[in-house]
């Protein structure tokens, strides 16, 4: 039985309050997320805003999971570092923690990643640039495409550059003799960089997908959400990398 239900504003007859709060002045805005946040005006219509916030909450949850994943490995790193060497069957010391010497290229890669975060952020902002959005809404061409695609392209290139640089770092570790997996500190280096690279590749796929959506002129809202989420994920990857690097450098 379908009823017309006006969004209630006035005081309602309070429910018994059983199983929840006491009598309310009006039904609290539930899943609406509180309507507009109050701090900023909603960009575009409320439906888009809900979709964006939903995607962002999903990304926040993913960020927590990813962070805990790297934190678990960091904890293993610190525990292993604190464990002294053992005596092997032949009486010799094995498994001593040798402080890691990071390949120099890693610092250059970090610079690339930080710059790529800046370019990703530029790309993201283009999709929320009000004048461009208004032009698109009025049907006056596709300025967001023109503005955002170059930044996305640069980000992708820098990201690929980072991965190439990481591969070169692995090569360097191999050549300089650090690639013996028995050595605890360098084995962690490979695990950390490998896991980060795997997540970063996922980020590249997301960015490429957002770029494709923009290039193929998918609905504006879709492009905005995709670009927003991929850019924020990219920042997360940068932050994770800085965390890992910090751990391996300062707690070497």
């Amino acid at each position, binding site marked *: *039985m*379908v*009823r*017309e*239900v006006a*969004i*209630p504003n006035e005081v*309602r*007859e309070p*429910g*018994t*309050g*059983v*199983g*929840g*709060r006491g009598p309310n002045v009006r*039904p*609290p*805005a*539930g*899943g*609406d*997320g509180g309507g507009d946040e109050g701090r900023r005006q909603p960009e575009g219509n409320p439906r888009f805003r*809900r979709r964006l*916030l*939903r995607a962002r*909450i*999903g990304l926040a*949850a*993913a960020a*927590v*999971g*990813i962070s*805990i*994943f*790297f934190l*678990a*490995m960091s*904890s*293993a790193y610190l*525990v*292993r570092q604190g*464990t002294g*060497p*053992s*005596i*092997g*069957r032949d009486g010799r010391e*094995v*498994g*001593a923690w040798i402080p890691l010497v990071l390949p120099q290229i890693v610092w250059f890669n970090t610079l690339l990643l930080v710059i790529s975060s800046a370019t990703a952020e530029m790309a993201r902002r283009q999709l929320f640039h009000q004048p461009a959005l208004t032009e698109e809404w009025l049907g006056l061409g596709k300025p967001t495409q023109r503005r955002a695609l170059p930044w996305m392209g640069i980000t992708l290139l820098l990201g690929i550059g980072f991965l190439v640089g990481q591969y070169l770092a692995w090569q360097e570790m191999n050549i300089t003799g650090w690639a013996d*997996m*028995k050595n*605890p500190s360098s*084995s962690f280096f*490979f*695990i950390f960089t490998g*896991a980060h690279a795997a997540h970063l590749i996922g980020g590249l796929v997301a960015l490429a997908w957002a770029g494709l959506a923009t290039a193929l002129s998918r609905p504006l809202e879709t492009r905005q959400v995709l670009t927003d989420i991929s850019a924020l994920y990219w920042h997360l990857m940068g932050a994770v990398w800085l965390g890992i690097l910090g751990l391996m450098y300062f707690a070497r």
Partner: protein
Amino acid sequence: MTPQPVSAAAPAGVLRRYLFSTDHRTVGRQYFFLSLIAVLVGMVLSLIMRVHMAWPEVRLPFLGQTLPEDYLAYMTMHGTLMVFFVLTTAPQSAFGNLVLPEQIGAGRMAFPRMNALSFWLTAVAFVVVVSALFVPSGASQSGWTQYPPLSVVRSTGAGQGLGVDLWIVGIGIFCFASLLGAINFIATVLRMRALGMSLMRMPLTVWSWFVTAQLTLLAFSVLLAAALLLFFDRHMGTSFFVPAGVVVNGVVQKYAGGSPLLWQHLFWFFGHPEVYIAILPGMGLTSHLLSTFARKPVFGYSAMVFSTMAIGFFGFLVWGHHMFIAGLSPYATLAFATLTMVVAIPSGVKTVNWLATLWRGRIRLTTPMLFSIGFVSLFVTGGLSGPILAQPTIDAYLHDTYFVVAHFHMIMGMAAVFAIFAATYFWFPKLSAGRLMSERWGRVHFWLTFIGAYATFLPMHFLGMAGHPRRYAQIAGSAEYLQGLLPLQTWVTCAAIGLIAAQFIFLANLFWSLRRGCVAETNPWNATTLEWQPPSEALVVYRGAYEYGVVRDGRDYRMQSEE
């Protein structure tokens, strides 16, 4: 606007309806039947183990005599399948997907395509894990806990080669699928509630799925990290978990300075929240059903919400109680023991509140209600052995005995499963196309299962106290002090056979009712929550979830969407 002619929707092909379905109900059903297959495989494995324990010489058809290494492989697979594919999947993924969006008035999950992906990844994980039983070298023998060095060194057993690799890969995929599912649940609860559905008006089932999703997010990430490190130890020559100088079959293994304790810490940091993931949805459902069928509001709704959160929070701080005899510092041991007793407090609050919900209620003993009351009984019985095991001095004796086996089977194997049964009977109209399971056979199933549960698992406490070790394939013909326990083991096996036999009644009822069960009305249980609401366009919530008891207009309940 001229009315458009209504055309019958073109019947969607099998692919679109099942393979690519993003409908939350279909995904929920898919998870349910995956869990059902897993529980059947797990039950068969437990039957083989029980028969071997009581009568070791028995030669089974096709399998022959169960060798000790076979027993360990069955034990590993039984634990893995039951904990992951039944207890983590059915309460949360199956019923959560089936019911949550409707209970909050959302209509769909936040990310429907990712939801479908989660299910199919879980299904792939299941196939990978189960395939270990069929490879020539057999399944892993190192237990669902996969302690190194046993799980790392491939020469320690037949199943420790490919078997363990399949376990790691399968469980790794399962972790990833669970994480995707958790993200979906969190985003759905936070962003997709209907107008008026405030957090404190949500049914307790939704609260439990929400908190459980957060636990899943935090715990499975750690398991994934641990599994990755284990895989590296096995194949990439690292030494995270294996110490130097380990000798296997006379051969010194080339590992250097790893720590088996590191695995235990990582695994149990996941493993303890995992058991709360298994039980919290059941607790939420029990609160929900006790209220519905006692026709009374939940006693202490806020306390229930906060105790759910407290259990979730403190559940992360107690993992060391699985490691009391591992050689931890006594101060760490003291901390873990104290915190374990602390986590029992919110569980106690819930138990008291369940009883208070029943007190002076107008109780209707339907099948879901019977299973919910059974849950409370089994939760108390199984749970009470928890604080006992939480005493390190007592655990020094009881660790790795049948006392522990009794504890977790009572509480996970039976209480959590009772919640799954209750959910199946209660939400059967949602699971099927609007039908109900037979009440009469449901009652028969309940009583046989309830008696069978106690008959099977209560004696195990005595076995444990007498010193019977767990994970032993056979005690017949072994140490003198264990021979006296054989009659009790035989009793347990006979009870287990009866318990398993009783489940055929459930299976028959389930599959018969899917097609021939009596058709349910829209709200067959006269419940208040939104999933029993007739479908309507605009859904606004005005009331809390448990407004039972006040009789007006001939009804003793008010639906959440009633003004």
